[in-house]
């Protein structure tokens, strides 16, 4: 069983961070994982993406051409990765920043207003946590309580943001779960 996802957005949206947290959670759960960032020549404020693979067997290619899931946090990312999603796969669109959906009818599409939810929770920088939660809710790549533990560990030096991030994570998770149901 393998889950793989490309997470993509603006630099500064915390995309690489949630990718790392996802990979780290997988490792803590005893699964095989890899995390691969794009490291092409990018300028500040440009796009950032990473590929995370979580598997119960050693990870083959850490680079995925047709991922089982894509998390698109901005329009350039949606434009770039939408055609790559594997048939039957998942496309998660941050509808707070992207004003279009997808026309593909062979994949599952999940619209998540990640930034709006984060604002609502008074955690304006927590859009990435909403997206992470929504991905985990719809893929069940890792258990959500394990992600929660990783959130606590990741932000242990900034305890004031832990609860807000966990709230954002769970709101995303609920949306993801509902979409699957």
């Amino acid at each position, binding site marked *: 069983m393998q889950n793989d996802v490309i997470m993509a957005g603006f630099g500064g949206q915390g995309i690489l961070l949630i990718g790392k947290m996802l990979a*780290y959670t997988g*490792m803590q759960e005893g699964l095989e994982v*890899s995390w691969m960032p794009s490291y092409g020549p990018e300028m500040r404020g440009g796009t950032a993406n990473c590929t995370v693979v979580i598997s119960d067997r050693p*990870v*083959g290619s*850490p*680079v995925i*051409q047709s991922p089982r899931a894509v998390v698109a946090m901005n329009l350039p990312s949606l434009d770039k990765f939408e055609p790559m999603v594997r048939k039957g796969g998942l496309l998660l669109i941050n509808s707070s920043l992207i004003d279009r959906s997808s026309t593909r009818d062979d994949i599952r599409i999940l619209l998540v207003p990640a930034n709006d939810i984060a604002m609502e929770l008074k955690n304006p920088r927590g859009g990435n946590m909403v997206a992470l939660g929504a991905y985990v809710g719809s893929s069940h790549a890792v258990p959500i309580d394990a992600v929660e533990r990783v959130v606590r560990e990741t932000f242990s030096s900034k305890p004031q943001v832990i609860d807000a991030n966990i709230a954002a994570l769970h709101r995303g998770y609920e949306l993801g779960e509902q979409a699957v149901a």
Partner: protein
Amino acid sequence: MAKKLMKGSEAIGEAAVQAGCKLFYGYPITPQNEIPEYMSHRLPQIGGTFVQAESEVSASNMLYGAAGSGERVMTSSSSPGISLMTEAISYMAGSELPVVLVNIMRAGPGLGGILPSQADYFQATKGGGHGDYRLLVLAPWSVQEAADLVQDGFDLADHYRNPVMILGDGLIGQMMEPVEFHKDRKPIKELKEKIWAATGYDGTRPRAIINSLFLDPATLEKHNHKLQAKYAEMTRDEIRYETYGTDKDYDILIVAYGTVARVCSTAMEDLEADGIKAAMIRPISLFPFPYEAIRKAADKADAVLVVELSAGQMIEDVRLALEGNKPIHFHGRMGGMLASPEEVMEKVKEIKAGKSQEVSHV
């Protein structure tokens, strides 16, 4: 020790520290900057020294000097940087200095690009610099293996008094995977005291001179014979490779090293689902090269497919291994483009269908 999620570059740095490396000299270049970055804060913690030199030429000659004192030393760079170090690498081989060199390959030639490549295979395995010398070259396919090979590399460098190169590509440098370091790791060789090291003459032992200059041709020939005997010993004792699916029947044998072999392993699984039988052999030591193992693994196969991120360099060694006994096919990407499992599958299917052109032996 528990598993840690580490970038390949950081794991390489930590592995060196665990192996007792206290000195690092380098010069920045993408995609391996996280190695010197890691060493710059890690080495001071253990009383070591990190130097960012003014150039690769300088860094590699600092390495020469430090290795001559018998300390465990390392440098890392990426393709164009390794080219700049190559003069000193030849000197280190000539002076029999144990050093660990890490090349996280990027696409060339020239300054090329910063994305992954395997186009430095010739440079690493066939010399690179001048003179009849060899590096012991090890190519990891995962972050864990990169860490393991760095630690083994220090033992092998000391044992043979020879530079060891860890040959990775940009993926190895940049990706994060779980890594475990074993606290009670033992050296893989019985290591002798470095009586050859130049640590200051106090009259109690022969004078130690680190040198690669021999103006008397007979003496230099003798020195060359000694080096060649060492390379022959490596060829006898240090061949490393892994095989995948070779216990079953198969039609196609894939030969790939480094992260490309990971891509091929994914392709193999998908091919199996399509009812096509393929196996793989992955050279881990590129010098010495597993000629005999490849010859044996190819026995059962109708054809051999070599996959590389280059125009085809290792394929020359595969051809030497097979001596024209099996048709060889090639799939390569260049410029920092990656081979995908889909491409490898497609190529295997073409070979099966007789639609792929064999690599010319002319």
